[in-house]
Every structure is written in C-alpha cells, then in structure tokens.
C-alpha cells in the first residue's frame, strides 16, 4: 500500500490552502511543496504499477466505434505512421502506442463515461507520457481536468470548440476550469472555431447570401460554432430567419424542413457532425423541396457524411468549411505524408489524418526535447514549441496552446467527393472578430 495517501501521512503540512475562485479545491503550493507533491504523486502512481524506465507509452482516445470510425481510423493510421517513421523509438525510449476508444457500441458515439475512464487509465499508468485526443470537443471537457492533475501532455488533433483554450471567448470560467493545477497541459494542432464560425459567415456574405436558417445539434462543438456563425451573420446584416437546435436522436426532420421551407432561406447552416445527423438533414432538405444551399463545418468533412446524405443530395449545393488545407492541397512534408499514406493504405487520407500525424510528431519532438521520462518536463517542452516544421507547414503554439495556423478552406461536394473551392484569408476579418 505504498502509494496510498494516509491522512496525516505523506502530504506536507504547510500547503497553503486558498480558495481560488475558479477551482475551490486546489492547494496553491510553493516550489518546495510542489516538488514534494510531485514526489508523492510519483509514489502514488508507482504504487499502482511499476514503471518501465526504457518505455514511453503514448495513448490516443478517439471514438473508435460508431460512424466516426472511418475518420478516426485515418487519424490512428497517421499516428502510427509518425511512430513507425521514428523507428518505434524516441531518444533512449521505446515507444508503445495504445489506441483507446471513447465511444461505446451502445451509444454509437463518444460517452463521458468512456472518456473519463480513458483519462483516468492514462493518468494512473506511469508509463504514459502523452495523450492524443480527443476527437469531440465535448469529450475534451471531460478528460482535460483529469489529465491536468498529472501534468500529462494532451494534444488534440480535432477539437475546435473555442472555450477549451481561449480566455474570455467561451463560457464564464473557461478555460481555467479545465486547469485545476493552473498549468497548461492541453494543446491542439487544429485552428479553433473562432476562425471557422465567423469566416463561414463572411464567405456566405461574399457569395451573396441574404437570408440564412441556422441549425445546430445542441452539442459543445456544433452549438458553439453555430452560435459564432449566428453572431457574425447579424454583424454582417445577413438576416437570420431562425436558429433551432435539433434532437440528434430523431430519425427524420421532415416537419422541421417544412418549417424552414416556409421561411425561405438562401442558405441553411448546420453546426454539427455526421454523427449528429448531418446526413439526414441534407436528405430531408431535398425531399422537402428546399433548393437553398447547405453549409456545414469541418465536423462533417468526412466521406461518411457524403455517404450518409447521398451524393446526389449534396451535389454542387453543399459547402464544407475546414480549418486547414485539404489533403490534396498540402505541400512539402504534408504532401509527402499524403503520398506515403496513399501508398501504404491504398486510399487517400481523411481530412484529419494529417492532424493525427502532426499531433504524434509534436509528442515525439516534446519527448526528445525533454530528454527524460517526466510528464511535467515533456508537457513543458511541447507547449513551448514556437517553431515547428511539420506536415502542416511552419507553425507553433501560442500561450493558450493554440496553433498559429489560421488557414481556412471551403470545399464543395461534387461527384460524391469534397472538391476544394477556395482558401479564405483570415486577415480580412482578424480585426472584426467577435469580442465576446
């Protein structure tokens, strides 16, 4: 029972306990105590399983069952490719990779319970030094505060909800609530929705859209981006005819579509994912006789979205925004990655594969830079990466853990595929981003 914290035992007596406004239960410690706490924490972990000094374990937590599987398969392949290219070793360490599932077959998508279990499992395994994930922003909200307690590096290849990192842009208390230790351990290699949502509205305006009808799936990601889109539309004086949340468990949306048809928009915007019924909406839109265009965010940028909606229903009328470049537009290391992927798996990568690859590269670089198997040192090495020459180009992390990349692209569905339409320049609207 070496690691069990006995009352009055291992914790140092003079931790100053202060009630912080954002997290009422975390002691503020001076550096002496911090070192001591770390030691204790190590002992706690050591009590569970003996660590292997020559091994570092990287885990990922992604929805591996359900309709996101095709996309996450591609991400996992990206991660595996990065590790294989490093020869399965980084510095003096052997790498072991564990692919955890945060979805259940019963739910068909991620669940809080599975994500929390994954986070705890990673936290309590002393060999784990990095956690790649999550795919869904809502899932990140569950695991971030857990992993933060152990300063375990978390790199997301796909979360785009604003509040996860950016102060004063999400809900009150975000992002501090996710950092009970007050330190940063969460990074993401994909640009957040504060670009995607408003820029989509700008693009719609440019294309002459006058009236929109906005739908969202009521989830962290979908509702977040739809709200940003909504706000920007009002600023640009695009008329918002309605903004409804859908029930993502409903099977059809015929009544809703009749209502939208009666309102008569030029564009229907859906903040949501394939998993929250993006495909069904597109289908019912067509059978209700709505001729307006449909615009969806990156959560739908996967082949299963087109399969679910039926290619004919999207042909030429469905526009997809994506925070980054599509695979065929990548250059340099990125295009090499795409070529290798194509060669190895015989199919082109999904949109997020390259982000999985890049996330793994960031983790490998951090372990190499830190040079030791120490979670805190590895996390610090990762978050101070300012200049990274990777598959996505040259970029770095800012002080919030966000990427400095800000390219946004719009694709249109043609012939059952996403066809690149144009890059939207973020600098046009940089000054007019919503202040809240």
């Amino acid at each position, binding site marked *: 029972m070496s690691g069990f914290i006995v009352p*009055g035992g291992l914790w140092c007596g003079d931790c100053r306990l202060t009630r912080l406004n954002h997290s009422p*239960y975390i002691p503020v410690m001076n550096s002496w105590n911090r070192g001591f706490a770390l030691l204790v924490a190590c002992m706690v972990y050591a*009590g569970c399983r003996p660590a292997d000094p020559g091994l570092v374990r990287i885990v990922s937590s992604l929805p591996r069952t359900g309709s996101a599987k095709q996309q996450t398969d591609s991400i996992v392949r990206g991660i595996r490719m990065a590790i294989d290219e490093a020869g399965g070793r980084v510095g003096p360490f052997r790498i072991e990779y564990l692919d955890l599932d945060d979805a259940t077959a019963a739910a068909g998508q991620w669940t809080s319970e599975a994500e929390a279990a994954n986070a705890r499992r990673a936290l309590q395994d002393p060999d784990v030094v990095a956690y790649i994930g999550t795919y869904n922003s809502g899932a990140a909200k569950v695991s971030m505060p857990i992993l933060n307690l152990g300063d375990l590096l978390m790199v997301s290849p796909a979360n785009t909800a604003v509040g996860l990192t950016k102060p004063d842009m999400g809900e009150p208390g975000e992002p501090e609530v996710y950092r*009970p230790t007050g330190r940063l351990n969460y990074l993401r290699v994909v640009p957040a929705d504060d670009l995607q949502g408003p820029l989509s509205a700008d693009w719609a305006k440019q294309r002459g859209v006058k009236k929109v009808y906005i739908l969202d799936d009521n989830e962290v990601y979908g509702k977040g981006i739809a709200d940003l889109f909504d706000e920007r539309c009002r600023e640009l004086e695009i008329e918002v005819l309605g903004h409804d949340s859908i029930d993502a468990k409903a099977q059809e949306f015929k009544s809703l579509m009749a209502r939208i048809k009666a309102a008569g928009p030029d564009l229907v915007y859906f903040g949501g994912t394939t998993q929250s019924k993006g495909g069904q909406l597109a289908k019912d839109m067509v059978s209700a006789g709505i001729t307006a265009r449909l615009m969806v965010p990156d959560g739908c940028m996967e082949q299963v979205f087109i399969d679910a909606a039926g290619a004919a229903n999207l042909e030429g009328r469905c526009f997809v925004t994506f925070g980054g470049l599509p695979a065929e537009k990548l250059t340099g290391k990125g295009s090499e990655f795409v070529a290798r992927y194509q060669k190895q798996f015989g199919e082109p990568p999904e949109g997020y594969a390259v982000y999985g690859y890049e996330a793994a590269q960031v983790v490998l670089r951090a372990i190499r830079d830190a040079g030791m198997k120490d979670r805190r040192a590895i996390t610090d090495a990762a978050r101070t990466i300012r200049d990274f020459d990777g598959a996505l180009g040259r970029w770095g992390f800012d002080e919030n853990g966000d990427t400095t990349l800000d390219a946004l692209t719009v694709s249109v569905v043609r012939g059952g595929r996403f066809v690149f339409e144009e890059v939207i320049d973020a600098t046009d609207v940089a000054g007019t981003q919503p202040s809240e």
Partner: protein
Amino acid sequence: MGTVWGWVSDRWEVVVLAVLAVAPLVIPALGGALGGQVTTLFIYCILALGLNVMVGYTGLLHLGIAAFFGIGAYVLAILTVPTFPFQIGWLAAAAVSIAVTAGIGLALGAPTLRLRGDYLAIVTLGFGEVAKVTLRNLEQVTGGMKGLNPVPPPGAGVTVAGTDLGLAFAVDPRWFYYLTLASLAGVVWAMRRLENSRLGRAWVAVREDELAASAMGISATRVKLSAFAMSSAVAALAGCLYAASLSTTADPNAYDFNRSILVLCAVILGGLGSIPGTLLGVAILVGFDTVLAPWADSLIQQLNINPSGSSLLSFSGWRLAIFGIALVLVMRYRPEGLIPSRRLAAELHGDQR
C-alpha cells in the same frame, strides 16, 4: 446450520464487506484504473438496490430509474459546481439531492398509481424520456449536452491532518472506492432492516395481492408511494456518487432508457426482491460492461491479433450478443433469477400474478 458454509451464507454481507474493505490494501491494481471501474460497479449496485424496492418488493415495473439517477446527479452538480453560486459541500448537497429526487418520485407517483401493471411501466418510461430531453434542453441550468463540469470531489477544500481530501479523492481512486463501498454497505444494511419492517412487509403484501392487502387495512396508495420515494432517493444517492466520481454529470444521454434497462435486467437476472441476487446481477452485467469488455479489448490490441481493426475480431463487437444470450439463457433455466429471494422462491413456482 452448524457448518462453516452455513455461517458464511447467513452473514454473507459481513464477509463480502470485509473482503472488499481489505482488497485495496492487498491488490495494488485497485489503486489504478481497476479501482475506478469497481467504484462504478458499487454505484450501480446502489442504483439496482433502489430499483429493487419498486420492482422486487412492491412489484411495480419501473422503466425509468435512470432518470432519477440523473436527476440526483444533476441536483448535486448544481449545488457544487463552480459555475453556480451555491458550492456547498458534497454531503449537504447529496442530502438535498436525495430529498429533491424523492419529492420528484412522489410527484410522478401520486397521479399515476391507479395505473396497473404495464401501463405504469410505460409511464415511468415516458417520464424517463421527458426528463432526459428536459435535462438536455434547459441549458441555463443543466449545461445542455455539455453537462455540468467539473463536479468537485467530496471533501474539496477540507484538510484533515495535512491531507487535502479533495486532491486525495481526485488522485487516488481508492478514496472513492471506500466512499462508495461505505455507501453501498449502508444501503444494504438499510434494505435488510426495511425488508423485515412493517413497511417492507406491506410492500410485499401489496405486490402479492393488492386487494387482500387493502382488506387487511394496508393503504395500498401510501405503500406504493413510499416505494416510489424510497426507490428515487436511493437512485439519487447513486447519482450523487456517480457525478462526483466522474467529476462531471456527463451528458443527459448517459441517463437514458438503455441504462434503466441495464439495471432492470441486473435486478431480474439476479433475483427479484433479493439483495444478494441484485448485487450479483449487477456484478455480472455491469462488470461485464465496465471491467471485462475494456480489459479484453485492450488485451486483443496488445497481442495484436486484430491489426485490421475489424469489429468481428474485437471483443466489444460481440458484447451485445454475449449480453443478450446470457439474459436469454438465465431466464430460460432460472426464471426466478440466480439467487431468488427466499420469500419469493417459497411461493413462486407455477403461480403468477
């Protein structure tokens, strides 16, 4: 019974409790992820014991227990998360949550008690759906699909002899292990007392023959209402533990019909009205889901048996079928459950209501 086995089977609770209490000190794995999984198991045991009051003792089919589980979790979260001004301690919040949830149980029970059998079942099912949708849509209060997050662990901000209990709960799963184990022991003890109390016997009397019970001067309405309240209260306790151990309420879909069904199956599989049966049922069904399936999956992955990721070769791909076959087989060969309640076993054979 003079044998050792007789002694053990008469006092099985004490024996099991002793074994479980010592286990974390001997099995280091319980300080890791396994500890968290076993904690979840204990929480489901409490939930199932709550459902057992309705379905087992009183004979009212309840298909919406998860809603009460969820309401319990959400009320606790509202009272403790940093986004609301209350932020009271876990114990006080749990007490309020249990009282509120029991009240909601009464409010649902009062108008619907004259419904019989399966009609009552569908009302509880409907209530479960309404509660889920309401939790999802009342974003200002419940956080919608985000849930309420983070729920501080019990003892947050309390220091005992230099140990910050909140941090201890967050870091070492054994704290939650003991908290849930103690709660479970408390609930089992209370149920034992209830079984043999006036109220417990009234429950069974109403189940066996409502008319005869009324003729004996038992108020069927009050007895049923008390079962509703008791069942909701115990479910709320489970919810409070659940939200605290997850550090979030999770999204409302975590409290849907599937969960009610899982718990109901556990109760019936183990044996209606039987405390050891209920606990065994949960251990088998929920244990399979939360302990065995993830373990088997990661084993398959580590052995690299399934490089293509096909669901035919993953354990969780077969999870539903194994589950279903187990339910069918147990019901076929032991329709009264694995450990039928002594009272029920004595009278059930061949006879049905």
